[in-house]
């Protein structure tokens, strides 16, 4: 793609087909680089956690501490937002957190593909959360779950508006949840690529360009640090919001 001095900041998001699986029912299916990274993430997480805890030692080593830390971090987040009852969703929240975190972190490796920079992936994860909330809410509380949209202590004439606002706010949750993660990863990676592109182009233009490239170089270094922060923070935000939404399914009614 990047031929000559043309640097394409969008190229890193390209889906590349590895194995074509034909078009069953007119739908194009293929095993892609995205799928390979997804399975790579799953394998990485699983092998790390099992390898780190292989000794099952009473006094943990470094890797085991890290595995225990991730467990206790997510567990305390779930307990803090959704209470002890929320622990039944702990495997789901942990899987979401570790998947998003690992995907974001793997995406920081040069030439690696960032799974979470695709809207369809983040939207699917957000829908998984919201559908879990809706289905569990109705199974557990029946129609009482709808009290989620009826705030208590509101004057009767305001109630219809409040219900409309609550419904809109509920429906916008999966959108904000998926867009936040997607946009953060996309924008961050594009910004890094653009500034890195400046360096390449300026150095190519001669000795004066080498001095000109110093500023974008600092920018890229700073952006890389920022992106690591964003990668971890967005995974945490995703997990915390999941917990807060699950809390609505566990305890509807304000």
């Amino acid at each position, binding site marked *: 793609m990047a031929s000559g001095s043309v640097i394409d900041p969008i190229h890193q998001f390209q889906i590349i087909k590895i194995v074509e699986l034909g078009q069953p029912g007119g739908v194009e299916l293929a095993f892609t680089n995205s799928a390979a990274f997804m399975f790579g993430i799953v394998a990485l997480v699983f092998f790390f956690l099992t390898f780190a805890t292989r000794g099952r030692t*009473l006094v943990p080593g470094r890797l085991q501490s890290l595995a225990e830390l991730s467990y206790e971090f997510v567990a305390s987040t779930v307990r803090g937002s959704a209470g002890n009852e929320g622990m039944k969703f702990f495997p789901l929240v942990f899987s979401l957190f570790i998947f998003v975190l690992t995907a974001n972190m793997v995406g920081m490796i040069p030439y690696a593909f960032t799974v979470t920079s695709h809207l369809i992936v983040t939207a699917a994860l957000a829908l998984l959360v919201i559908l879990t909330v809706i289905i569990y809410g109705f199974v557990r509380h029946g129609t009482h779950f709808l009290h989620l949209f009826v705030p208590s202590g509101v004057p009767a004439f305001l109630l219809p508006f409040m219900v409309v606002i609550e419904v809109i706010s509920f429906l916008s949750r999966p959108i904000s949840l998926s867009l936040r993660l997607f*946009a953060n990863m996309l924008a961050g990676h594009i910004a890094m690529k653009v500034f890195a592109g400046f360096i390449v182009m300026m150095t190519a233009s001669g000795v004066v360009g080498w001095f000109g490239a110093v500023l974008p170089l600092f920018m890229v270094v700073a952006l890389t640090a920022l992106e690591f922060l964003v990668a971890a923070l967005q995974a945490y935000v995703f997990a915390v919001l999941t917990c807060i939404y699950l809390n609505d399914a566990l305890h509807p009614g304000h």
Partner: protein
Amino acid sequence: MSEPHGPAGIIVAQASPGTLPAASGVEIAVPAAEAHGSNFPPFDVHTFPSQLLWLVIAFAALYLLMSRVALPRIATILEERHDRIADDIEEAGKLKAESEAAAEAYEKALASARTKAHGIATETRDTLAAEAETRRKSLEADLNVKLAAAEVQIAATKTAAMANVRGIAVEAAGTIVNTLIGTTPTSGAVEEAVDTAIKG
């Protein structure tokens, strides 16, 4: 949380067919549309079914591996450690209670021994005092008996001496009368005179 980078994503999405606004001065071009319909990969709907399919499979696998294998494993480790610490604290508490009981028993034994020693000392002192008293009393009685005997003897001696005094007086009176007048009075008269004198 707000979406700090939300607008950036949208701008990029809108600007994707042409040149990036941020990079308008530099030659950063987006390549022309590829075989797929869209030229911005995240919005290329042709890739959605594949991505969804593999995401569902991968995430389901991750969920199963986490919930069945990895998380129970870590939970067991944490639980074992928690139990072990609780056990150790309990054991320490038990030992502490035991040592406290032993210390208490020791204090009690010490106190009872002290009381017993005190009792023995008192008893011994009382016994010795009583013994001394008895001995003193018997000694006193003995002395009293001896004193009484001595008094009796003194009285007897005194009586005897008094009796001797009469005899000597009679004899001396007779001798004195003889010396004075040259005649010896009859013993009867002298005795009578002496008796009168003694009585007077």
